[in-house]
């Protein structure tokens, strides 16, 4: 079921005496011209990806609210039509098919997570819909022959890319690497395995895993391998379970890094002091001196009474980027919009966004954050860092 109100059809404008008169005397065309521009999307409002999906939805809602506050696009209001894909790739494919063929939305924004987007991407390509993908960081989506999916965030091979060099500087020589069986996390995992080898780390333990809840055996194996660094590419629930299990098995590596989980407010609430000194990554941060960032943060807090994260920032960026393309081309033509996006660099709250010809964002990286005394702080790059990294991870 859509979680937003249904977009107004032309018949809505014929309601009321004045509108009825306009329709009768043939001014239906005027009403038609003022029809809202509808952006269709799905978000994981339920299912295992719902924690991050909610941030994406809020980023989109805020973006659309601000667009409308400034008069919309092409003189028309903008509406968001959202379905819950339940974190299911299969459900998302059906819903995007519906958005394109039945709802006939004007524009699309992709779903949350690479896992879901990988399934939807061929459909978007088939229908030639220029679709921004704020929640899909796996690079294999943005390749030759699949060029209608347009990235607007850092790709997942950059997640936690600064952690191993930092650990090496502090004498770490061994690493345990874990990756969730999911598109983005496997891309991250394989990139970190390759990086560890390049940097001369000895990989003393590595495994991939499914969305399981028991990490006691994995934690015991890590404990026996005694790595200086434990680096996990996963989602929020498994991030929490791994840290907890390592603590229960009595092991605290010198460096503990996890993707996605640590940036969520629920992470610190779930782990308490165990979360301290865990590293995470973020493609956006509160202190970025980027155009509109301060306003984005203030408006987000006002609208949702909570703080944004990088998923919300990426979704908000997607609405800004799409708006720039629509206004830049004065059109809703998909080919023109796609062409505009892959040929223009746009300054966003995340920093400059520039896609290559295949829709892959060039040059964007995920920066390093660390939880310090229960508060998430940006610790790299040095030019933006709010604090120095606290070493070692203590696990309490």
């Amino acid at each position: 079921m859509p979680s937003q109100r249904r977009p107004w059809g032309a018949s809505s404008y014929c309601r009321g005496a004045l509108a009825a008169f306009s329709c009768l005397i043939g001014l239906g065309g005027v009403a038609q011209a003022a029809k809202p521009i509808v952006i269709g999307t799905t978000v994981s409002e339920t299912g295992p990806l719902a924690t991050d999906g909610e941030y994406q939805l809020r980023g989109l809602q805020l973006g659309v609210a601000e667009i409308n506050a400034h008069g919309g696009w092409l003189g028309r209001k903008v509406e968001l039509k959202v379905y819950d894909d339940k974190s299911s790739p299969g459900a998302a494919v059906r819903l995007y098919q519906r958005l394109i063929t039945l709802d006939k939305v004007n524009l699309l924004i992709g779903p949350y997570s690479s896992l879901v987007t990988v399934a939807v991407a061929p459909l978007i390509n088939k229908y030639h819909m220029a679709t921004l993908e704020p929640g899909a960081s796996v690079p294999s989506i943005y390749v030759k022959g699949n060029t209608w999916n347009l990235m607007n965030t850092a790709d997942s091979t950059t997640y936690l890319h600064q952690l191993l060099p930092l650990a090496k500087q502090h004498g770490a020589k061994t690493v345990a690497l874990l990756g969730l069986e999911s598109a983005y996390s496997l891309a991250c995992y394989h990139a970190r395995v390759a990086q560890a080898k390049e940097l001369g780390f000895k990989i003393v333990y590595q495994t991939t895993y499914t969305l399981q809840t028991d990490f006691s055996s994995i934690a015991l194996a890590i404990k026996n391998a005694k790595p200086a660094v434990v680096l996990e590419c996963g989602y929020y629930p498994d991030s929490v379970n791994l840290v907890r299990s390592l603590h229960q098995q009595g092991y605290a590596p010198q460096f503990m890094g996890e993707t996605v989980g640590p940036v969520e407010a629920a992470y610190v609430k779930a782990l308490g002091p165990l979360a301290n000194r865990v590293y995470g990554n973020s493609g956006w941060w509160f202190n970025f001196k980027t155009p509109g960032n301060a306003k984005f943060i203030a408006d987000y807090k006002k609208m949702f009474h909570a703080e944004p994260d990088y998923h919300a920032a990426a979704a908000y960026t997607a609405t800004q980027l799409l708006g720039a393309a629509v206004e830049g081309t004065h059109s809703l033509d998909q080919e023109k919009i796609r062409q505009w996006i892959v040929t223009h660099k746009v300054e966003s709250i995340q920093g400059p966004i520039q896609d290559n010809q295949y829709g892959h964002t060039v040059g964007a990286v995920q920066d390093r954050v660390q939880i310090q005394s229960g508060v998430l702080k940006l610790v790299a790059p040095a030019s933006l860092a709010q604090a120095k990294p606290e070493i070692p991870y203590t696990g309490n």
Partner: protein
Amino acid sequence: MLALQLLVNGILLGGLYVLVAQSLNLIFGVMGVVNLAHGAVIALAGLFTYWFTAHTGANPLLVLPIAGVAGALMGALGQRLLVEPVMRHGARSELLSLLVTFGLSYILIELALQLFGADFVSVPDLQSSWQLGSLAFGKALVVAGVFALVMSALLYAWLNHSMSGKTLLAAAQSPTGAISCGIDVALVRMTAFGIGVGLAAAAGVLVIIIQPVAPQTASDLTLLAFVIIALGGLGDYLGVAIAAVLLGITQSVAGYYLGGNAEYILPYVLLLVVMVARPGRFRRIR
């Protein structure tokens, strides 16, 4: 020492499985109803625990009796209003009750979504371990395991050594015979369902201490519980407890030597093997 730690981890994991599965087993054993709302009850109770402790700062274990009693009362009421009416349809009652609890699970999941949101949450209690020499015993799993053990023992003793328990078993084995002996079978079923739901709600309080829970966790929990009771013997309380612990130990060893994926798929592989090798186990034990 490694072998011992793997054994400890496996037994503790098995304790969690007993906790999750035994209440489903009770309801199935007595009524022949696969309660598909089982996982939703666990998730709802867990999320309530999170909400309650976040707002009061209370120890989550204090919620155990509240959840248990409230779950039992609501379970009994739900059974009388929703499940009992379909139990009078003879051979069709098992399928009809399956559909009723399936619908109920969706209502409870939606209720949890509306009340608590879609986020995974957990509580930061009992996160450390008790050490015995070099062996680590995760506190949350120990508490859950002890609770499951006590509940299973009480359940077993009650069913086999008390008049009311034997009445319940009699109603399970032959409803017609029980009625002819003057047993109020409808009351027995309501009692069993109430106790089962109460135990599931208590399990939810402990599960959220062990792992993050969200409304959508419900279906995973139901599936896991069903796999365990299928492996242990549908309606066989001792068999389910033994199967749960053996499964925990097997997963613990597989996870250590073969990695996360092997550990995850193991219950389902075992289920397939048992289904093929021992199809007779998939009958309700009366």
